[in-house]
């Protein structure tokens, strides 16, 4: 399989707002993730799970090192190019759903397609949003506002939104942390399905060891040791 993500000597350093001292939020000497891989990321709070996902998606630039994602050197790209890269290559799912509260489920999914700058007509966008929402079991909730949906349903809208531009990479940051066991199971199954059917590279960061049971590889940021082929239970 081709290499989808490669990080080399990546560091992310922040200046602490309190003391003004420099704090290292992320250090990855080397990390390689293959196309279509299903990788879990775990670590204690503050170990840099979210920072790693943000660096891979281009939301953050590293303080040092090389970030190669789907053939693009993200650490050298300017912000506008990283924005467009993210829109076309990375689908994002968040712990707190982060749906736009004044848009319907369908409009939330369609909005993601707007930013990819493709040639899709409005009608095609609408049809794709319908298809994606039906595929996550929300065919009857297309025109509901986020506030009218349960937590599990909101996260399913997020999954549909993340898949809107058919990206090669799906990153999920604690996607099940706010869900009950039934909805957690539904979301994980949707993510596995996307990984298997669309050959998406799936990266999921979580505290939840159970959530990583279906993953073929777990990256532990506490010691940066990649455990190949076993669940981190």
């Amino acid at each position: 399989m081709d290499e989808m993500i490669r990080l080399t000597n990546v560091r992310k350093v922040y200046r602490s707002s309190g003391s003004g001292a420099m704090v290292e939020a992320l250090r990855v000497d080397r990390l390689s993730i293959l196309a279509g891989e299903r990788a879990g990321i775990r670590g204690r709070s503050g170990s840099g799970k979210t920072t790693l996902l943000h660096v891979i998606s281009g939301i953050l630039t590293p303080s040092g090192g090389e970030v190669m994602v789907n053939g693009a050197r993200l650490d050298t790209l300017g912000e506008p190019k990283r924005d467009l890269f993210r829109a076309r290559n990375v689908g994002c799912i968040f712990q707190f759903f982060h749906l736009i509260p004044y848009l319907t489920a369908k409009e939330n999914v369609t909005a993601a397609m707007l930013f990819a700058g493709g040639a899709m007509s409005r009608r095609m966008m609408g049809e794709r949003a319908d298809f994606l929402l039906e595929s996550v079991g929300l065919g009857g909730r297309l025109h509901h506002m986020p506030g009218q949906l349960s937590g599990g349903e909101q996260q399913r809208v997020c999954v549909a939104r993340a898949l809107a531009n058919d990206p090669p990479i799906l990153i999920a940051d604690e996607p099940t942390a706010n869900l009950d066991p039934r909805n957690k199971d539904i979301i994980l199954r949707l993510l596995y399905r996307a990984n298997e059917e669309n050959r998406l590279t799936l990266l999921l960061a979580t505290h939840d060891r159970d959530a990583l049971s279906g993953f073929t590889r777990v990256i532990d940021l506490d010691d940066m040791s990649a455990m190949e082929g076993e669940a981190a239970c």
Partner: protein
Amino acid sequence: MLMSISFKYITKRLRQYALTTLVAALAISMTIAVTLAADSLKDSVVYASMPFDMIVGAKGSAAQLALNAVFLRDTPVGNVDQAVYERYMNDGRARRIIPLAFGDSYRGSWIVGSSEALFTLRPSEREPEIFQIQEGRFFQDKYELVVGSEAARRLGLAVGDTVKASHGMSDILDEELAASRVHNNHIYTVVGALKPMRRPYDLGMFASIETFWDIHGGGERGVSAFIVTPWDYVGLMSMYQELNTGSEAQGVFPGEVAGDLFGVIGRGEEALRLVSYAVAALGFATVILSLYWSVLNRRKENAIFRALGAGRSTLLRMVVTESAMVMLVSAPLGLLFGHLVSGFIGLYLRRVMAVYVPASFSVQELYILAAYAAIGAVGAALPAASAYRQDVAGLLAGE
């Protein structure tokens, strides 16, 4: 679709945007109302002065003389000697000499003594006379009164009515004072009602000058002023110079006096205009602040858009679209309010002075709207830039 997102956001915060739009509309309307009212007032004063090529009156204030003869306002200046009036009447340099006698009124409306020549008064020789009979006829004899359309309407006068004139220019409300000055033995009969002239003379009432001489003793003749319509410009200038170098009377060009008045009024108008610009600037600042607050209020949502791949230009377009939507509503509202305010000013001037402020659309309004659009667009860029600079990762970390 971007527009639809902006529209949905505005709909969600309808109250805030309605207030912003209203403030912006008021800012536009203030600027437009001041501009329109100032321009219209000038036009209407020039329009009112048109039939009066030159006014001749006693030495004194030129502005007062013009106010008396053209607007039927202010305290009448003293009389011109009858001999002077007759000399100009007979020397052939003027096409028309029309005498005017002031000093009496009826419930606030000036009674003007004149000759039949008054009814030939016209803005130019190519245009019809400004005096046109609506009902009845012009005066032919003493104590016959022809009433202006506005005076007739306000005082409820019709042909056949009789009135007792008061000496002086008593206010219509000052009944007691008016009553003490009534010429009890002299009763006018209304013989004609005029069509609207859309000039200050609509407020006037007109009788023969012989009536005035009769009321005021008969022995002493004289006129308060006379209107000169020349044959040509050379004749007009020769009379003007002769009058103003002599000691008997003064000649006044009402247009010139209006110009001088506007020079004085202009400074006030300039100050008013500056105030209106300041109000407009405050309005624009409110719009920009409102947009800025709107961006601050939805930092989280902008961070989500950024996480989904929205770039600088996209966020800029969204904020500018909102600004444009505010403008699309506030601009016509501002125009409407501006014209309404200007209309009210016009009504007030019409009521007080019978000066007709024409309702018109000024090209300056387009400049004001263009300036507003430009400021709105530039102003929108500020919050948009702030939207782009925000800490996306930090905002996404929160609930």
